[in-house]
C-alpha cells in the first residue's frame, strides 16, 4: 500500500489489490457464462460440435450488434426503444428497393440510410425539445413500425437478389459466419471507442452528470445526436443481416427485440441510470444470453417461455445490486 501521509508526491494511482480487479460484475458474468457452457456440454453431446455452436450464434448476433451502440447510449443516460421498429422499416425499404431491382450493395446502403434517418429523427426530437428519450422512442417505435405496416400491410417481400443471402447466411472462414465475424469486429471497435477515445470519455461524463458536462464545454446535445444516429445506423445494418438470413420481410419482423437488446446491455453491467458500464461486460452478457437460449432450445423449451426468462432476468439483474447496496448501507448504519 502506498503511504499517503508522508510528503512524497501524490501518485497517479494507488496500487490496487488483485482482489479488487477480480470482484467485478464482468468476472461474475464470465463465471456464470462458463458454468452455463459446461452445463450445456454435459446436458447434450451435440452442444460441443463447432457447427452447432456456430449455428447458435445466429440467434443473437443481430441483436448483439445493436447492443454495442445501445450500451453507449444508455451510458449517456438515453435509451432507444425503437430499434426493432427501425429494423422493420429498414427491411421494408430494402424490400421496395429489391423490387426496383437494386443489387445487394445498394440494399445495404438503403437499410443503413433509413436507419440513420430514423436515428437522426429520434435524436433531434430528444435534443431539440428536451423530451425524455423513453417517451420519444415509444412514439417512434409505433411510428416506424406503423409506416412499415402501411407500406406492406399483411404482405411480404421475398424477392431478394442473389448474393444478398451472404450477409445473413454466408461464412467468412470455416465455421465463422459473416454475421459473427462482423459482430466480433464491431465489438473491438466499440471497445476502443468507449474506453480509449475522447468520445467515450465524454459519453461517461455526460452520463454521470449532464449539467456538469455541459458546463465543462462538452456539446452535450450534439454528442447525444451522434449516438442516436449510431444506434439507428447499426439497427439498419442488423436489418440487413436479419432480412438476409430470413430471406423475406414482413412488417412484424424483429417484434419485441428492443427488450432483448436492452436486457443484454443491462445484464452486461451497464447502469440503466447512465454513467457506468463496460463493453467487455456487454459482450460477455451477449454470449451468456446466447448460450442460455441455445441451452433452452436443446431442452425443447418453447420460445415464449424465453420472454418470461428474459423479463425476469432484466428485473432481477437490476434489483440485485440495488438490494445489495441497501443491505450494505443498513449494515454500515448499524456499526
Amino acid at each position, binding site marked *: 500500500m502506498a503511504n499517503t501521509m508522508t510528503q512524497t508526491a501524490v501518485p497517479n494511482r494507488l496500487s490496487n489489490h488483485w482482489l479488487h480487479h477480480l470482484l467485478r460484475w464482468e468476472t461474475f458474468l464470465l463465471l456464470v457464462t462458463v458454468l452455463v457452457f459446461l452445463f450445456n456440454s454435459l446436458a447434450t453431446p451435440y452442444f460441443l460440435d463447432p457447427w452447432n455452436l456456430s449455428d447458435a450464434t445466429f440467434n443473437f448476433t443481430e441483436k448483439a450488434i445493436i447492443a454495442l451502440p445501445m450500451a453507449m447510449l444508455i451510458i449517456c443516460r438515453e435509451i432507444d426503444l425503437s430499434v426493432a421498429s427501425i429494423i422493420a422499416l429498414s427491411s421494408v425499404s430494402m424490400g421496395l428497393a429489391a423490387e426496383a431491382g437494386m443489387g445487394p450493395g445498394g440494399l445495404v446502403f438503403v437499410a443503413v440510410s433509413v436507419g440513420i434517418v430514423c436515428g437522426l429523427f429520434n435524436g433531434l426530437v430528444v435534443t431539440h*425539445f428536451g423530451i425524455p428519450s423513453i417517451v420519444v422512442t415509444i412514439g417512434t417505435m409505433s411510428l416506424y413500425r406503423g*409506416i412499415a405496416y402501411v407500406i406492406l400491410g399483411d404482405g411480404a417481400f421475398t424477392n431478394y437478389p442473389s448474393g444478398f443471402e451472404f450477409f445473413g447466411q454466408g461464412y467468412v472462414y470455416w465455421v465463422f459466419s459473416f454475421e459473427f465475424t462482423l459482430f466480433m469486429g464491431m465489438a473491438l471497435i466499440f471497445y476502443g471507442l468507449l474506453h480509449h477515445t475522447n468520445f467515450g470519455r465524454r459519453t461517461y461524463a455526460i452520463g454521470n452528470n449532464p449539467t456538469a458536462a455541459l458546463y465543462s464545454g462538452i456539446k452535450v446535445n450534439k454528442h447525444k445526436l451522434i449516438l442516436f444516429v449510431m444506434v439507428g445506423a447499426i439497427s439498419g445494418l442488423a436489418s440487413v443481416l436479419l432480412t438476409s438470413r430470413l430471406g423475406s420481410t414482413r412488417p412484424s419482423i424483429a417484434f419485441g427485440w428492443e427488450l432483448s437488446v436492452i436486457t443484454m446491455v443491462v445484464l452486461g453491467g451497464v447502469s440503466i441510470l447512465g454513467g457506468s458500464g463496460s463493453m467487455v461486460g456487454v459482450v460477455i452478457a451477449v454470449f451468456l444470453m446466447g448460450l442460455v437460449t441455445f441451452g433452452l432450445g436443446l431442452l425443447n423449451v418453447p420460445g415464449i417461455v424465453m420472454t418470461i426468462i428474459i423479463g425476469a432476468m432484466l428485473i432481477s439483474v437490476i434489483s440485485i445490486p440495488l438490494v445489495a447496496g441497501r443491505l450494505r448501507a443498513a449494515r454500515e448504519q448499524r456499526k
Partner: protein
Amino acid sequence: MMSALLKHRERFLALVILALILVVGAITPSFLSPNSLVSAFNDTSILMILAMGQMLVILTRCIDLSVAANLALTGMVVGMINAAYPGVPVPLLILFAMAMGACLGAINGFFVWVVGVPAIVVTLGTMSIYRGTIFLLSDGAWVNAHQMSAGFISLPRTVVLGMPVMSWIGIIVVAAFYFATRHLRLGRDFFTSGGNPTAAFYTGVSVGKVQFKAFVVSGMLAGLCGYLWVSRYAVAYVDVANGFELQVIAACVIGGISIMGGVGTVLGCALGALFLGVINNALPVLGVSPFWQMAISGAVIIIAVIANSTAERSKGRIILRRAVSKRATPSQHQEA
C-alpha cells in the same frame, strides 16, 4: 395563439374531436347516427379506463408498460374460469379480475417502491413475463365464445338508458377519478409527489408509497378491462391487446399529462382517449386501411409530447419586476 390554445387543452381537444366527427360525418353521413356514435364511444371505453390508471402512474413520474399484458393475462384467467365453472356469478368474476389486476400492478409497484428499480425497466420486464404466463396457462389455446357463459358475454352489452353497460362503466370510472383528483387527499398526493418529490416528502407524503398506489390502481383497472375486453370480443388468446399499452400512453400524452410528472387533468386525459377512439373508428368508416392505426398513434404521440414540451418550457426565472406583472395577469396576451 398556439400557446393560448395549448393552455386550454381541454377546450382545444374537445373542438378538435368535434371537428373530426363533423368532417368524417360530412364524408360518410352514417357516422353521425346516434347508434354509430354510441358504438364509437363504447369502443373507446376500455382505452379511457386504462388511460385513467396510466395517468396516475405518469403523474408520479413513472410509466406502466405492462397494462396490456396485465389485461390479457387477467382476461385469459377470467375466461378460463368461466369456461371451466360457468356457475361462478359474473359480478364475482369481475371482482376477481380487479383483484388479480391489482396484484399484478402491486408487483410493479413493489419493485418501484421497495427495491427502487426504474418503472420503465420493471414494467418492460413484467410486460413480457405476464404475456409469457398466458401461454404457460393456456398452452397457446384460445378460449372461444361458445365456451363462455351467456351472462359472461352479455353483461357489457346490456343496454341501460340508451347506452351499453361498458360505456357506463367508462363514464363512472372517469367521474370517480374526476372527483378523487379534485376532492380527496389521495388524489392530490399523485400531483404533489410527481410535481416536486422533495417538497412532497417535506409535507409528509411518502412518494414511493404513492407510486405503489398508482401502480395498484392502474393494475386494478387493467384487470377490470381484462374482463371487459374478453367479454366484448368474446375471445381470449395470448396476443390479446398486444401493443395496446402504447395507445394508452398516447391517450395520456395527447390529453396533456406531462411525462415529467405532476401535471395533467382527468378531463384532458379522457378527451385524449376519445380523440384516439374517434380516429380509430373513423378510419374504417373512411375506408382507410387499418394498418394506418399504428403509424398514426405513433405520430400523434410525438406531436403531443412536442406540444407539451413547448407549452411547459420554462422561460427562465422571474426576477425583473416588469416580468412579474406581465406573467401574473393571465388575461394579457403572451408572446410565443
